[in-house]
């Protein structure tokens, strides 16, 4: 009885400031045990005070678990694509690829097929080879391709569409950015606002008139539509390079001018090399955009033209040839994704750094 009163009168003992024995005596064993349990995982309670180090460790582990789970979700479809590209869907049927989760029940490495009455192994890269050869060969009759259109032609088109306009366009954008950032000229701010306002015009709303313009100029069948407009540069690219140039000291240009360099020389010999990180990053991002440009080719270039790009060819093949044989389709998807992935892997530091600096999304 006396002991009870004693406990009630006593102030609540705190872990850390009072001895742990007092705390233990004050709380019930269950409550005390729960506190110990929480403290082990880094949470302070009334009975125990967790160490900061432990709290950080636990939170770090939790963060890793969350991030790893997210990373798994991000990467899994790519793994699925790779596994799918090694699935034997021919001449069996599509079932192995439709039921695929981790690795196909019948992969091209183990499957066999009938060729000229003989059973032969399929070969691991069957789907890829089929995509290169048979699929494109049957495309002329089934998907409406141009006569003699091959995978290599599509790949070449893709390379042209994503190198020529990007390289030229990034230089024209950089020159405009230089003029906006470092030269004082009449009408500069008006022109800048005028160009920036063009971003407000959504692409699809001028799709029709652009289509008519290009067809009037005969730019569609020969694929110039995906080359020439891009060479005039892009406003967003110019905008981001301009932001980068603002951070550059003007004294370099002043010094060059004193030494007698004209603006053209200043641009080619000072601005281009010095702004190279920004130019490279913007160029790489536009390269990826152009490489994946399905819509441009699909809308603007007729399907019987030899100038269609790889995504457009894949779309036509999928609709006409691959419905019953999805393995090569996914192999094609892997081939479509692989170059940009490799490029991204090589330049990820530059690209991510530029994205973080400029705050652009694409």
């Amino acid at each position, binding site marked *: 009885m006396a002991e009870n009163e004693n406990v009630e009168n006593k102030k609540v003992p705190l872990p850390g400031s009072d001895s742990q024995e007092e705390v233990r005596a004050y709380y019930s064993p269950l409550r005390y045990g729960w506190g110990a349990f929480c403290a082990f995982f880094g949470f302070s309670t009334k009975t125990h005070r967790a160490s900061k180090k432990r709290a950080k460790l636990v939170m770090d582990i939790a963060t890793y678990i969350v991030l790893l789970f997210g990373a798994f979700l991000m990467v899994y479809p790519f793994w699925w694509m790779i596994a799918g590209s090694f699935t034997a869907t021919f001449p069996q049927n599509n079932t192995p690829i*439709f039921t695929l989760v981790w690795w196909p029940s019948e992969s091209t490495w183990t499957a066999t097929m009938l060729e000229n009455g003989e059973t032969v192994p399929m070969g691991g890269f069957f789907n890829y080879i089929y995509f290169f050869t048979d699929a494109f060969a049957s495309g002329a009759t089934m998907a409406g391709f141009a006569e003699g259109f091959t995978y290599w032609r599509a790949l070449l088109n893709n390379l042209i569409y994503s190198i020529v306009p990007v390289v030229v366009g990034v230089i024209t954008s950089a020159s405009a950015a230089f003029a906006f950032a470092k030269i004082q000229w009449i009408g500069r701010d008006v022109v800048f606002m005028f160009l920036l306002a063009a971003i407000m015009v959504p692409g699809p709303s001028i799709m029709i008139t652009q289509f*008519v313009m290009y067809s009037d100029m005969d730019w569609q069948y020969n694929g110039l539509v995906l080359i020439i407009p891009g060479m005039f540069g892009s406003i967003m690219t110019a905008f981001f390079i301009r932001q980068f140039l603002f951070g550059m000291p003007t004294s370099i240009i002043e010094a060059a001018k004193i030494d007698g360099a004209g603006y053209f020389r200043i641009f080619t010999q000072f601005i281009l090399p010095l702004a190279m990180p920004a130019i490279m990053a913007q160029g790489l991002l536009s390269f990826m955009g152009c490489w994946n440009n399905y819509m441009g080719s699909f809308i603007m270039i007729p399907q019987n033209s030899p100038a269609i790009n790889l995504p457009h060819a894949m779309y036509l093949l999928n609709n006409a040839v691959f419905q019953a044989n999805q393995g090569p389709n996914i192999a094609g998807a892997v081939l479509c994704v692989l170059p940009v992935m490799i490029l991204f892997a090589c330049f990820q530091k530059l690209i*991510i750094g530029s994205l973080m600096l400029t705050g652009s999304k694409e």
Partner: protein
Amino acid sequence: MQENIQASVDEAALDAEPAVSAESEIVAEAAVPEKPKRRINQAKLQDNLWGWIFCLPLIIGTVWFVYYAFILAFLLSFTKFTNVDGSLMDAVAHYGEFINTGEWGAAHWYYQLFHEANGTTTSLGAQGIVMNEMGRYLFNTVFYMIGIPIGMILSVFFAVCMSRDIRGGNLFRVLYYLPCVASAIAIVYTFKIMFRTDGVMNTLLGLKDYTYPDITGAGGNKGFVWIPEGTNIGYSWCDIAGIQPTEDTSAFMRDPFWCQGLLSKTVIVIMSVWKGLGGTIILYVAGLSGVNAATKEAAEIDGANGWQIFWKVTMPDLYPTIFYNIVTSVIGGLQIYAEPELLMSTSSASAGFPNVSGFVALIYKYGLVGDVKSYGAGAAYGFFLAVIIFVLTLFQFWLDSRNKD
């Protein structure tokens, strides 16, 4: 020192191209007082000349491919101009002949946008909510926007995780950004198979053996359908509930748009959230690195817990990034086209799927498909889209300005 200045003055005086800066200008003025005015004008002239020359390609490109095209789109939207009527110049030269006559006069295409009903709607009878084709496409476009808040919450969450002081943060950033660089067509074909009736998704969710009610007596179909195949427009609520539709059944119950349409759209929302997450995460990581560390520390010393610090210190600093992100996502989201079309397209149907297509598909379907391409209609629908986007953007900026007060 004196010699240096003299040398530079001489050089500047001798130089045939007087590209000299203001600094050397002053020196030149002091040394050669006879003709200072002309030289200053020369430098100014150089500035103006080269400023315009450097900008010229971009200005030409923008005026030609954006402004010119936009003005012509506006003009064309009031005409019945088609691809058999000749070139764009013909349309402008004989503009009067092409002007549309119909309901609402020249604005006939805009009338049609609001009135023309899609075939599937009328055949179902007019009970309950009936939408015309434009309504459906617009509804789809707006439906895809639920991906924006979902993506935003997820990416802020992951960005906060990544900006903790842990090893390998950069690796995670790269991994999360991978879907952003992948081609849309490859992603769509992958998801198309993953969301099949016997695909990965149904296997994981245990929906592989789900059996639809047997209405027709031919036996219910097996496997939960996310994306209907071919010309099949999918299941309605009647099919799912096993009710035989009658005359009195509402359009909501009979129309697959309200059942299968929503499911198929969900797949696209999942796909676009997955694909867009990396880009926004990087934006937020950049935004978080700009959050003032001193303020955070001060809050910590004052006894604020992590949750309070996040809402009271981090979020206000992150607000500009979030606003920018929402504006660009809404503008981009309204222009969605490729993903739904690719997901649904088969050999038998290739343009315009009322269940899933975004508004842009309407422009394509009426403006650019067929032997006679009705450019006027496409231009009108495109202009309508531009107006929607403009109004929505203004609205967002208005909300933003109101928040700041």
